Protein backbone atom coordinates (compact mmCIF):
# COMPACT_ATOMS: atom_id res chain seq x y z
CA UNK A 1 0.00 0.00 0.00
CA UNK A 2 2.67 2.49 -1.05
CA UNK A 3 0.00 4.84 -2.40
CA UNK A 4 -1.44 5.75 1.03
CA UNK A 5 1.13 8.16 2.46
CA UNK A 6 -1.42 9.88 4.73
CA UNK A 7 -1.89 6.79 6.89
CA UNK A 8 1.17 6.15 9.06
CA UNK A 9 2.75 2.76 8.43
CA UNK A 10 2.57 1.81 12.10
CA UNK A 11 -1.23 2.28 12.16
CA UNK A 12 -1.56 -0.10 9.22
CA UNK A 13 0.67 -2.59 11.03
CA UNK A 14 -1.44 -2.30 14.19
CA UNK A 15 -4.60 -2.92 12.16
CA UNK A 16 -3.03 -5.91 10.36
CA UNK A 17 -1.58 -7.53 13.47
CA UNK A 18 -4.62 -7.21 15.71
CA UNK A 19 -7.02 -7.83 12.85
CA UNK A 20 -5.33 -11.19 12.25
CA UNK A 21 -5.29 -11.91 15.99
CA UNK A 22 -9.05 -11.31 16.12
CA UNK A 23 -9.60 -14.52 14.13
CA UNK A 24 -7.09 -16.47 16.26
CA UNK A 25 -8.69 -15.47 19.58
CA UNK A 26 -10.40 -18.72 20.45
CA UNK A 27 -11.16 -18.84 24.16
CA UNK A 28 -11.03 -15.07 24.48
CA UNK A 29 -8.19 -12.60 24.78
CA UNK A 30 -6.65 -14.18 27.91
CA UNK A 31 -5.70 -17.14 25.74
CA UNK A 32 -4.14 -14.76 23.23
CA UNK A 33 -1.54 -13.17 25.52
CA UNK A 34 1.42 -15.36 24.43
CA UNK A 35 0.78 -14.58 20.77
CA UNK A 36 0.27 -10.84 21.42
CA UNK A 37 3.51 -10.86 23.43
CA UNK A 38 5.37 -12.69 20.65
CA UNK A 39 4.27 -10.20 18.01
CA UNK A 40 4.43 -6.99 20.03
CA UNK A 41 7.64 -7.61 22.02
CA UNK A 42 9.63 -10.13 19.95
CA UNK A 43 8.68 -9.50 16.31
CA UNK A 44 7.67 -5.82 16.06
CA UNK A 45 9.49 -4.66 19.23
CA UNK A 46 6.85 -2.01 19.90
CA UNK A 47 7.49 -2.37 23.63
CA UNK A 48 9.86 -4.05 26.07
CA UNK A 49 9.02 -7.01 28.27
CA UNK A 50 8.62 -4.67 31.26
CA UNK A 51 6.34 -2.31 29.31
CA UNK A 52 4.21 -5.29 28.29
CA UNK A 53 3.81 -6.20 31.95
CA UNK A 54 2.86 -2.58 32.74
CA UNK A 55 0.29 -2.54 29.93
CA UNK A 56 -1.19 -5.74 31.34
CA UNK A 57 -1.34 -4.25 34.85
CA UNK A 58 -3.03 -1.07 33.58
CA UNK A 59 -5.60 -3.09 31.63
CA UNK A 60 -6.35 -5.24 34.68
CA UNK A 61 -6.74 -2.18 36.92
CA UNK A 62 -9.45 -0.85 34.60
CA UNK A 63 -13.05 -2.06 34.61
CA UNK A 64 -14.33 -3.78 31.51
CA UNK A 65 -13.55 -6.65 29.15
CA UNK A 66 -10.16 -8.33 29.50
CA UNK A 67 -9.18 -7.32 25.98
CA UNK A 68 -8.19 -3.80 27.09
CA UNK A 69 -4.49 -4.70 27.01
CA UNK A 70 -4.87 -4.33 23.25
CA UNK A 71 -6.06 -0.73 23.69
CA UNK A 72 -3.10 0.08 25.94
CA UNK A 73 -0.64 -1.42 23.46
CA UNK A 74 -2.19 0.66 20.66
CA UNK A 75 -1.98 3.77 22.84
CA UNK A 76 1.67 3.07 23.61
CA UNK A 77 2.48 2.64 19.92
CA UNK A 78 0.54 5.57 18.42
CA UNK A 79 -1.46 7.46 21.05
CA UNK A 80 -5.25 7.72 20.99
CA UNK A 81 -5.48 6.90 17.29
CA UNK A 82 -3.32 3.81 17.83
CA UNK A 83 -5.57 2.69 20.68
CA UNK A 84 -8.66 3.18 18.53
CA UNK A 85 -7.21 1.28 15.56
CA UNK A 86 -5.92 -1.62 17.70
CA UNK A 87 -9.22 -1.94 19.58
CA UNK A 88 -11.34 -1.85 16.43
CA UNK A 89 -8.98 -4.31 14.75
CA UNK A 90 -9.24 -6.90 17.54
CA UNK A 91 -13.06 -6.53 17.69
CA UNK A 92 -14.33 -5.96 14.16
CA UNK A 93 -13.31 -9.07 12.17
CA UNK A 94 -14.55 -11.54 14.78
CA UNK A 95 -17.71 -9.45 15.31
CA UNK A 96 -18.56 -9.61 11.61
CA UNK A 97 -18.01 -13.37 11.69
CA UNK A 98 -20.19 -13.70 14.80
CA UNK A 99 -22.89 -11.61 13.16
CA UNK A 100 -22.83 -13.88 10.11
CA UNK A 101 -22.74 -17.17 12.01
CA UNK A 102 -25.37 -16.29 14.64
CA UNK A 103 -28.07 -16.63 11.99
CA UNK A 104 -27.22 -20.22 11.06
CA UNK A 105 -25.92 -21.48 14.42
CA UNK A 106 -29.24 -22.44 15.97
CA UNK A 107 -29.93 -24.89 13.17
CA UNK A 108 -26.95 -26.97 14.30
CA UNK A 109 -27.86 -26.96 17.98
CA UNK A 110 -27.94 -30.73 18.34
CA UNK A 111 -25.33 -31.65 15.74
CA UNK A 112 -22.79 -34.09 17.20
CA UNK A 113 -19.97 -32.36 15.33
CA UNK A 114 -20.75 -29.11 17.13
CA UNK A 115 -20.44 -30.90 20.49
CA UNK A 116 -17.16 -32.47 19.40
CA UNK A 117 -15.77 -29.11 18.30
CA UNK A 118 -16.65 -27.53 21.63
CA UNK A 119 -15.20 -30.44 23.60
CA UNK A 120 -12.09 -30.38 21.45
CA UNK A 121 -11.51 -26.64 21.82
CA UNK A 122 -11.77 -26.70 25.63
CA UNK A 123 -8.36 -28.30 26.42
CA UNK A 124 -6.61 -26.12 23.81
CA UNK A 125 -8.02 -23.04 25.53
CA UNK A 126 -6.88 -24.27 28.95
CA UNK A 127 -3.35 -24.78 27.67
CA UNK A 128 -3.34 -21.32 26.09
CA UNK A 129 -4.57 -19.56 29.24
CA UNK A 130 -1.91 -21.31 31.34
CA UNK A 131 0.67 -20.31 28.72
CA UNK A 132 -0.56 -16.73 29.19
CA UNK A 133 0.12 -17.06 32.92
CA UNK A 134 3.64 -18.30 32.19
CA UNK A 135 4.46 -15.57 29.67
CA UNK A 136 3.06 -12.87 31.96
CA UNK A 137 4.99 -14.20 34.95
CA UNK A 138 8.20 -14.09 32.92
CA UNK A 139 7.41 -10.50 31.89
CA UNK A 140 6.10 -9.22 35.22
CA UNK A 141 8.10 -11.05 37.87
CA UNK A 142 11.81 -10.35 38.31
CA UNK A 143 12.26 -10.82 42.05
CA UNK A 144 11.46 -13.63 44.46
CA UNK A 145 8.96 -11.29 46.13
CA UNK A 146 7.18 -10.70 42.81
CA UNK A 147 6.96 -14.45 42.09
CA UNK A 148 5.61 -14.90 45.63
CA UNK A 149 2.81 -12.40 44.95
CA UNK A 150 1.88 -14.28 41.76
CA UNK A 151 1.94 -17.68 43.49
CA UNK A 152 0.07 -16.50 46.58
CA UNK A 153 -2.62 -14.82 44.44
CA UNK A 154 -3.04 -17.93 42.29
CA UNK A 155 -3.36 -20.18 45.36
CA UNK A 156 -5.75 -17.88 47.25
CA UNK A 157 -7.88 -17.33 44.14
CA UNK A 158 -8.16 -21.11 43.76
CA UNK A 159 -9.11 -21.98 47.33
CA UNK A 160 -11.15 -18.92 48.37
CA UNK A 161 -14.03 -16.97 46.84
CA UNK A 162 -12.52 -13.55 47.54
CA UNK A 163 -13.31 -10.85 44.96
CA UNK A 164 -10.44 -10.67 42.44
CA UNK A 165 -10.21 -6.90 42.80
CA UNK A 166 -9.20 -7.32 46.45
CA UNK A 167 -6.02 -9.16 45.39
CA UNK A 168 -5.11 -6.33 43.03
CA UNK A 169 -5.82 -3.74 45.74
CA UNK A 170 -3.69 -5.48 48.36
CA UNK A 171 -0.89 -5.98 45.84
CA UNK A 172 -1.04 -2.30 44.83
CA UNK A 173 -0.76 -1.23 48.48
CA UNK A 174 2.18 -3.61 49.13
CA UNK A 175 3.88 -2.41 45.96
CA UNK A 176 3.32 1.27 46.71
CA UNK A 177 5.05 1.06 50.09
CA UNK A 178 7.87 -0.99 48.60
CA UNK A 179 7.24 -4.33 50.33
CA UNK A 180 7.30 -6.28 47.07
Amino acid at each position, binding site marked *: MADSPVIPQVLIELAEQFGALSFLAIGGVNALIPEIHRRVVDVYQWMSNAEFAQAFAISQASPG*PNMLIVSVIGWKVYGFLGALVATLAICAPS*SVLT*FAVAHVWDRFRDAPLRAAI*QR*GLAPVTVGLVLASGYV*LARAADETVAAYSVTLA*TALLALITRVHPLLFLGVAAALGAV*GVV
Partner: protein
Amino acid sequence: MSESSTAAERAPVTQADLFFGFLKVGVSGFGGVMPFARRMLVDERAWLTEREFTEVLSLSQFLPGPNIINVSIIVGNRFRGPLGAAIASLGLMLMPFLIVLALAALYARFATLEAVRGATAAVSSAATGLIIAMGLKMGQPLSGTVWQIVIAALAFVALALLRVPLLWALLILVPLSVALAWRTRR
Protein backbone atom coordinates in the same frame (compact mmCIF):
# COMPACT_ATOMS: atom_id res chain seq x y z
CA MET B 1 -35.65 -17.61 13.65
CA SER B 2 -38.77 -18.43 15.67
CA GLU B 3 -36.77 -18.23 18.89
CA SER B 4 -35.46 -14.75 18.12
CA SER B 5 -38.96 -13.47 17.44
CA THR B 6 -40.30 -14.86 20.74
CA ALA B 7 -37.41 -13.21 22.57
CA ALA B 8 -38.17 -9.94 20.81
CA GLU B 9 -41.88 -10.18 21.64
CA ARG B 10 -41.32 -10.61 25.37
CA ALA B 11 -40.43 -6.98 25.90
CA PRO B 12 -39.66 -4.22 23.44
CA VAL B 13 -35.94 -3.50 23.64
CA THR B 14 -35.00 -0.12 22.23
CA GLN B 15 -31.62 0.95 20.90
CA ALA B 16 -31.18 3.12 23.98
CA ASP B 17 -31.91 0.08 26.19
CA LEU B 18 -29.18 -1.85 24.40
CA PHE B 19 -26.69 0.99 24.71
CA PHE B 20 -27.23 1.69 28.40
CA GLY B 21 -27.67 -1.96 29.36
CA PHE B 22 -24.28 -2.84 27.94
CA LEU B 23 -22.73 0.45 29.09
CA LYS B 24 -23.43 -0.64 32.67
CA VAL B 25 -22.04 -4.12 32.03
CA GLY B 26 -18.86 -2.57 30.65
CA VAL B 27 -17.99 -0.74 33.86
CA SER B 28 -19.25 -3.42 36.24
CA GLY B 29 -16.38 -5.87 36.45
CA PHE B 30 -12.61 -6.13 36.42
CA GLY B 31 -10.64 -8.62 34.32
CA GLY B 32 -13.77 -9.79 32.53
CA VAL B 33 -17.42 -8.82 32.79
CA MET B 34 -19.25 -11.97 31.68
CA PRO B 35 -20.94 -12.63 35.10
CA PHE B 36 -22.33 -9.07 34.99
CA ALA B 37 -23.57 -9.57 31.44
CA ARG B 38 -25.48 -12.65 32.61
CA ARG B 39 -26.96 -10.72 35.53
CA MET B 40 -28.10 -7.83 33.30
CA LEU B 41 -29.47 -10.00 30.47
CA VAL B 42 -31.18 -12.71 32.54
CA ASP B 43 -31.92 -11.36 36.03
CA GLU B 44 -32.30 -7.60 35.73
CA ARG B 45 -33.82 -7.04 32.29
CA ALA B 46 -35.03 -10.53 31.38
CA TRP B 47 -34.02 -10.10 27.75
CA LEU B 48 -32.89 -13.73 27.68
CA THR B 49 -33.82 -16.85 29.59
CA GLU B 50 -31.08 -18.78 31.38
CA ARG B 51 -31.07 -21.34 28.58
CA GLU B 52 -30.91 -18.66 25.89
CA PHE B 53 -28.00 -17.01 27.67
CA THR B 54 -26.12 -20.30 27.90
CA GLU B 55 -26.60 -20.80 24.16
CA VAL B 56 -25.45 -17.28 23.35
CA LEU B 57 -22.43 -17.74 25.63
CA SER B 58 -21.48 -21.07 24.11
CA LEU B 59 -21.64 -19.62 20.59
CA SER B 60 -19.56 -16.62 21.73
CA GLN B 61 -16.91 -18.90 23.17
CA PHE B 62 -16.92 -21.12 20.13
CA LEU B 63 -16.31 -18.24 17.73
CA PRO B 64 -13.02 -16.30 17.73
CA GLY B 65 -12.78 -12.83 19.22
CA PRO B 66 -13.42 -11.31 22.64
CA ASN B 67 -16.28 -13.41 24.07
CA ILE B 68 -18.18 -10.54 25.68
CA ILE B 69 -18.08 -8.52 22.45
CA ASN B 70 -19.57 -11.51 20.65
CA VAL B 71 -22.36 -11.68 23.24
CA SER B 72 -23.18 -8.00 22.67
CA ILE B 73 -23.20 -8.56 18.89
CA ILE B 74 -25.57 -11.54 19.10
CA VAL B 75 -27.94 -9.91 21.61
CA GLY B 76 -27.92 -6.53 19.85
CA ASN B 77 -28.62 -8.20 16.52
CA ARG B 78 -31.38 -10.40 17.97
CA PHE B 79 -33.39 -7.38 19.16
CA ARG B 80 -32.45 -4.55 16.81
CA GLY B 81 -30.62 -6.02 13.84
CA PRO B 82 -27.18 -4.90 12.60
CA LEU B 83 -27.53 -1.40 14.07
CA GLY B 84 -28.46 -2.94 17.42
CA ALA B 85 -25.32 -5.09 17.30
CA ALA B 86 -23.20 -2.01 16.65
CA ILE B 87 -24.91 -0.01 19.41
CA ALA B 88 -24.64 -2.79 22.00
CA SER B 89 -20.93 -3.36 21.35
CA LEU B 90 -20.24 0.38 21.34
CA GLY B 91 -22.05 0.75 24.67
CA LEU B 92 -20.02 -2.12 26.08
CA MET B 93 -16.62 -0.78 25.01
CA LEU B 94 -16.99 3.01 25.29
CA MET B 95 -16.35 3.58 29.01
CA PRO B 96 -13.72 0.85 29.56
CA PHE B 97 -11.80 2.15 26.53
CA LEU B 98 -11.76 5.73 27.83
CA ILE B 99 -10.98 4.67 31.41
CA VAL B 100 -8.07 2.43 30.45
CA LEU B 101 -6.56 5.19 28.30
CA ALA B 102 -6.94 7.66 31.18
CA LEU B 103 -5.13 5.16 33.43
CA ALA B 104 -2.39 4.68 30.83
CA ALA B 105 -1.95 8.45 30.54
CA LEU B 106 -1.86 8.82 34.34
CA TYR B 107 0.71 6.05 34.56
CA ALA B 108 2.88 7.65 31.89
CA ARG B 109 2.80 10.95 33.81
CA PHE B 110 3.51 9.53 37.27
CA ALA B 111 5.71 6.55 36.39
CA THR B 112 8.72 8.40 37.77
CA LEU B 113 7.27 8.04 41.28
CA GLU B 114 8.66 5.00 43.05
CA ALA B 115 5.31 4.23 44.70
CA VAL B 116 3.43 4.23 41.37
CA ARG B 117 6.01 1.97 39.71
CA GLY B 118 5.97 -0.37 42.71
CA ALA B 119 2.17 -0.53 42.82
CA THR B 120 1.89 -1.19 39.09
CA ALA B 121 4.51 -3.93 39.17
CA ALA B 122 2.79 -5.63 42.11
CA VAL B 123 -0.62 -5.38 40.41
CA SER B 124 0.74 -7.09 37.32
CA SER B 125 2.24 -9.87 39.49
CA ALA B 126 -1.09 -10.39 41.26
CA ALA B 127 -3.10 -10.20 38.02
CA THR B 128 -0.79 -12.86 36.57
CA GLY B 129 -1.69 -15.06 39.55
CA LEU B 130 -5.38 -14.53 38.74
CA ILE B 131 -4.82 -15.68 35.14
CA ILE B 132 -3.01 -18.81 36.36
CA ALA B 133 -5.84 -19.57 38.80
CA MET B 134 -8.38 -19.08 36.01
CA GLY B 135 -6.48 -21.49 33.75
CA LEU B 136 -6.37 -24.11 36.50
CA LYS B 137 -10.08 -23.67 37.26
CA MET B 138 -10.94 -24.01 33.58
CA GLY B 139 -8.78 -27.15 33.54
CA GLN B 140 -10.58 -28.91 36.38
CA PRO B 141 -13.36 -30.39 34.19
CA LEU B 142 -10.62 -31.93 32.01
CA SER B 143 -8.92 -33.79 34.82
CA GLY B 144 -10.70 -37.09 34.19
CA THR B 145 -9.72 -37.35 30.53
CA VAL B 146 -6.14 -38.21 29.61
CA TRP B 147 -6.22 -36.99 26.01
CA GLN B 148 -7.61 -33.61 27.05
CA ILE B 149 -4.81 -33.14 29.58
CA VAL B 150 -2.25 -34.10 26.92
CA ILE B 151 -3.73 -31.55 24.47
CA ALA B 152 -3.71 -28.82 27.14
CA ALA B 153 -0.09 -29.68 27.99
CA LEU B 154 0.91 -29.60 24.31
CA ALA B 155 -0.73 -26.18 23.88
CA PHE B 156 1.09 -24.90 26.96
CA VAL B 157 4.50 -26.20 25.85
CA ALA B 158 4.04 -24.92 22.29
CA LEU B 159 3.03 -21.39 23.27
CA ALA B 160 4.84 -20.83 26.58
CA LEU B 161 8.11 -22.70 26.14
CA LEU B 162 8.66 -23.16 22.40
CA ARG B 163 7.01 -19.81 21.45
CA VAL B 164 5.42 -21.41 18.39
CA PRO B 165 3.24 -18.95 16.40
CA LEU B 166 -0.35 -19.42 17.54
CA LEU B 167 -1.67 -20.06 14.02
CA TRP B 168 0.59 -23.13 13.56
CA ALA B 169 -0.25 -24.45 17.01
CA LEU B 170 -3.98 -24.08 16.35
CA LEU B 171 -3.76 -25.64 12.87
CA ILE B 172 -2.22 -28.77 14.42
CA LEU B 173 -3.86 -28.97 17.85
CA VAL B 174 -7.48 -28.02 17.04
CA PRO B 175 -8.11 -30.69 14.34
CA LEU B 176 -6.29 -33.27 16.49
CA SER B 177 -8.31 -32.36 19.58
CA VAL B 178 -11.64 -32.24 17.75
CA ALA B 179 -10.88 -35.63 16.14
CA LEU B 180 -10.18 -37.10 19.58
CA ALA B 181 -13.40 -35.56 20.91
CA TRP B 182 -15.27 -37.04 17.94
CA ARG B 183 -13.84 -40.53 18.49
CA THR B 184 -14.74 -40.47 22.18
CA ARG B 185 -18.21 -38.90 21.72
CA ARG B 186 -21.00 -40.39 23.74
